[in-house]
């Protein structure tokens, strides 16, 4: 089993505010890590730093074997990031959007239908502009876009938000399946029971640091 994420005393700054103030964490392949902490604890920033989108000012950081302080771009194509926002083009149809994202990520157009079916979006809604979908349906389109890219490392920010109970269970099944097949999942969530049921390890953040870790080794 290899180490997917290894952060040592990582400091990162957004604007002039220190969003990460010395993060130490190491995540192994196949783990499903739940990030907890109040708003502003640094969960989102940690996910963005893992994705190579946030410049690291101090400390050492390795993701998928790449040193982020040398090359932040290299690991990105193996990572799927789902942010707070869904990153959707409002005027595209759901199927068009997922097709676009699948091809963008180096996959096939045909992956799109499979991914949309997997998240349980009824095919009636596939050819509807995204702006006409509900919040939960949009979230599903965003998740389908990730599935189409088959990432090795999933970074999810509040993945359950806006989803109904059935869809949440669906999502958990998808993530467990991905982890079982060798992917690694790190997600931030406020959904207590549902998240703990999914996760294999719980990490608590506060003030831009990791302050609690159920699975530290």
């Amino acid at each position, binding site marked *: 089993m290899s180490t997917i994420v290894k952060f040592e005393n990582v400091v990162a700054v957004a604007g002039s505010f220190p969003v990460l103030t010395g993060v130490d964490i190491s995540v192994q392949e196949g783990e499903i890590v739940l990030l907890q902490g109040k708003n502003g604890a640094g969960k989102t920033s940690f996910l963005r730093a893992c*994705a190579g*989108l946030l410049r690291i000012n101090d400390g050492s950081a390795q993701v998928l074997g790449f040193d982020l302080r040398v090359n932040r771009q290299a690991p*990105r*194509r193996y990572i799927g990031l789902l942010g707070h926002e869904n*990153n959707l*083009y409002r*005027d*595209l149809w759901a199927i068009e959007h997922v097709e676009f994202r699948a091809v*963008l*990520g180096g996959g096939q157009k045909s992956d799109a239908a499979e991914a949309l079916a997997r998240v349980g979006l009824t095919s009636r809604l596939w050819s509807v502009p995204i702006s006409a979908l509900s919040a939960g349906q949009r979230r599903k389109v965003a998740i389908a876009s990730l599935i189409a890219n088959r990432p090795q490392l999933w970074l999810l920010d509040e993945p359950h938000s806006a989803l109904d109970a059935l869809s949440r269970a669906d999502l958990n099944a998808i993530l467990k399946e991905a982890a079982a097949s060798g992917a690694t999942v790190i997600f931030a969530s406020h959904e207590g029971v549902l998240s703990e049921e999914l996760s294999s390890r719980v990490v608590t953040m506060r003030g831009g640091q990791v302050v609690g870790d159920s699975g530290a080794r």
Partner: protein
Amino acid sequence: MLAEVLLLARKDLRIERRAKVAVGQVAPLTLLIVVVFAFALDANAPLLEIGAGGLYWVAVLYGGTLLTQRAFEIETEGGNFDDFKMSPIKAQSLFLGKSLSLFIQICALELVLTPAILLLYDVQVAEWLLLIAAGVAGAVAFSVCGVLWGVMAAGLRVRSTLLPLLLIPVLAPVLLAGSRAFETALGIRADAGWSWTSLMFVIAAVHTVVGLAAFGFLLEES
């Protein structure tokens, strides 16, 4: 790479076809400007005829800036630049794809504006070929410059004011060359219209080279 460029351009154009911002808002707005120029110049027919080429390109400059802003708005409103950064797609493809879709939109804008000045400013076309060549050259130069500076302003909160400030000085030579070329094409001045047209192509080429080299950097910092 060509496939990537086409993929991106097609996506942009599809969004534009659905949202109809260029057709529904920018084009009527530039038409309005053509009309307002006539008010400003007191509907002075000889003056409008002499100024037709220049006024045309000022209207294109205005509409084109709006289209450039719109081209980056569709990416930033949902945070989609992150997806480009996360994907293995080349920054150069993104630059060319965006330029291509902007080019097509500006051409469409020109297709609306050209008959407008012909009818409203009472000018005749002396050289059709030159008119078309100059229109295309201007659109190419405009789109590559626009995309190059658009991405620079894209991540910033004050982009709607910053983009014109950065873009217009750069486009000043295009405006100058376009106006002169049109004056020749419309038979107002018999000067070197073709040379001005080739100057626009040179400007476009220079900015394409710069864009291909620098776009990766700019995207990363947007």
